């Protein structure tokens, strides 16, 4: 009403009404602005939670520094290797001294320990415990060493096998490309390689027929369902009928072949013999 005070001083009614309207409008605008301001500001606690949740998802599990392994107690077991590592770090010198047989061990280690006895007695138990711990550490060390050695040997074997496999694959790459080109399955490829190995084993020719630029011999082979030869033909000869006959005989003598897989039944093969 105080705001409206100056309006009463005016004698002109129109001016009064105009002034009142403008004041009202100003008030309305202020109120509307304020309400907008309140509604658009972020409700802080809710957004931060969302962001923290996203961060927690993105980041790895945080290391909680409260969760260190407990110091070794009488009740520790060999499986708790982290505890052993801690113990190794903590007790090297003392246990070494004990191991070297210094006469620090109070009392006879083999004597029965009477817990209720006087003050020096607990030392024996402690020394015994240290001795046991040392032995267990030794065992653990040797166990880990042998494990490491086994792992290394296994790795070496795997590496050698991998190299051999790569070499074998490189050597057979041509056949493999062909086999793949004709759309043959994995089992069929394995059969083809085994067939080739058998024939290769029996491939033997007289030294007399060894020549630098000799033409190769091609033989068409058709196997029956049991692996026996159904058809065998000389497709291309070397020019020496004796050599062709020797190679044909060697293929016939390589029988019996293993039975071909289903998709290779009735599949003709061409064997190309290079001298």
């Amino acid at each position: 009403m105080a705001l409206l005070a100056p309006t009463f001083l005016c004698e002109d009614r129109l001016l009064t009404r105009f002034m009142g309207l403008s004041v009202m409008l100003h008030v309305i605008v202020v109120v509307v602005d304020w309400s907008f301001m309140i509604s658009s500001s972020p409700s802080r606690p809710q957004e931060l939670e969302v962001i923290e949740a996203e961060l927690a998802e993105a980041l790895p599990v945080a290391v909680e520094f409260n969760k260190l392994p407990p110091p070794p107690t009488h009740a520790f077991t060999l499986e708790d290797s982290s505890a052993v590592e801690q113990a190794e770090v903590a007790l090297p010198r003392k246990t070494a001294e004990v191991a070297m047989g210094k006469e620090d061990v109070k009392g006879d280690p083999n004597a029965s320990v009477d817990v209720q006895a006087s003050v020096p007695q607990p030392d024996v138990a402690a020394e015994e415990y240290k001795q046991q711990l040392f032995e267990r550490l030794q065992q653990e060390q040797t166990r880990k060493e042998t494990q490491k050695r086994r792992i290394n040997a296994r790795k070496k074997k795997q590496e050698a096998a991998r190299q051999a496999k790569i070499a074998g694959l490189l050597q057979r790459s041509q056949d493999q490309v062909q086999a793949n080109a004709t759309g043959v399955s994995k089992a069929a490829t394995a059969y083809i390689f085994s067939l080739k190995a058998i024939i290769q084993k029996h491939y033997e020719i007289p030294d007399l027929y060894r020549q630098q630029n000799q033409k190769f011999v091609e033989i068409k082979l058709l196997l029956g369902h049991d692996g026996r030869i159904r058809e065998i033909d000389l497709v291309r000869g070397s020019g020496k009928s004796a050599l062709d006959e020797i190679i044909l005989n060697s293929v016939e003598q390589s029988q019996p072949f293993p039975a071909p897989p289903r998709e290779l039944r009735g599949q003709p093969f061409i064997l190309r013999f290079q001298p």
Partner: protein
Amino acid sequence: MSIRRGFGLSALVFLWVSGTQGGAAAPIVLNIDHPQFRQMTVAIPEVAVQYPGSIPDWGLDASPLLEGYLNLSGYFRVLDRQGYQGLWPEKSFAWGSPLAKTAQKMDRSTWKQLGAEALLLVKAAPRGRAVSLELTLTEIRGQDGRTLAKEYRVASRAQLQQTLKKFVDEVLRRLSGKPGIYGTKIVFVGKKTARAHKAIYMCDVDGSNVEQLTQTRAIHLSPSWHPEGKAVLFTSYERGNPDLYQMTLPGRRKSIVSAEKGLNSGGAFSPDGKTIVFSGSSGGGNTDIYLKTDPLKGRKRFIYGTGLDVNPVFSPNGKWLAFVSGRYGNPHIFRAELEWNRDRQSFRVVKDIRLTYAGWYNASPAWSPDSDRIAFAGFDRAVGRFDLFTMKADGTQMERLTLRHGDNESPSWSPNGQLLVFSSNRVADTNRKGPFQIYIMRRDGSHETKLDVGMYSADSPKWSPVLDWVSS
């Protein structure tokens, strides 16, 4: 309607039937290479004669002589006569006799069952005072029928031997496509007695017909052949200095190639016969490799450096030069790549690579005739002996040829690449050492046979190329 159905049905049946034929699938190609190599089995029955006593006794030796020559070639394994004892007459039989009928009954399938791949039949008949020989080689396998049939007339045992050697060469050429070995000779350094001077000798591949080439009483060393067998290079001390000489063959005219003061040794011809490379001393105790194209002009140094460079040999294809160098300490075998100018008149060394890394002392490289492999002698410290090895021309795939049979040195290949001649100081079959002698073995190291050349000691053998002047 029923006709259509019938058509459809028959079409289906046709497709099904053709499908089971398996002809629709494209054939899969399998490459099979790297065969195993073996000897060819040959059967050589006894000589067949017209009637017993018709030919002199030396004529009946044709079969055992052929057996020996075929065995030496390294390609054949002669079938033991025991294998066909009951089927083929043991003694020489007469044509037309019941024994001959038995022999004729042996057809190809019987021989195949016995394991023979080839059959060599000898028929002998008197021809005046000489003997007419009919030799027939038949390959049991194949449809070629008779592979080779030849008729000869021989008047003496020596002529019989020469004729049979010529025939075996013909057999080898026909079957392998490569030249035989009986048209070649072996040249070596020999000492007739313990106190004699070392001289250059030449003999046949079976150790017969030994001839002395150098007559001067001085030390002679390291012979080597002209690529066409027209001359032999060697080093001689007859002028008080190790000079390089050349002797033409068969004329036996001797001339000096290089007589520089100091060493002129280990000479070798280039494959075109125009250049001679040798090891020469360069002063200060160093030895380098020199070449000479004109005997009247001076020598040209072309492989040199720290350490000794000796024993140069051209590869038969002219691309490389193998030599022994001590530039890295112990002697090892190196290979120099040669670049010939456009008209193949001269060449230069582009680079050289080291071939042998294993071993402590590797020497005397020898190229195989197809320039594929190099044979050399390497000292094996584990055994304490020199042994023979072969490797590929790039130094890989090293194979050992001798073991625990004394020192084995100076290998040399036969022109067909099947045999190697070398010198060894083994005593019989042991590892003990005695004077050096000449041996022949097959390219895989098997069948080491001593050549009986009648010397106190013989070494540095070199196998000649096929010679057109060998009397045959």
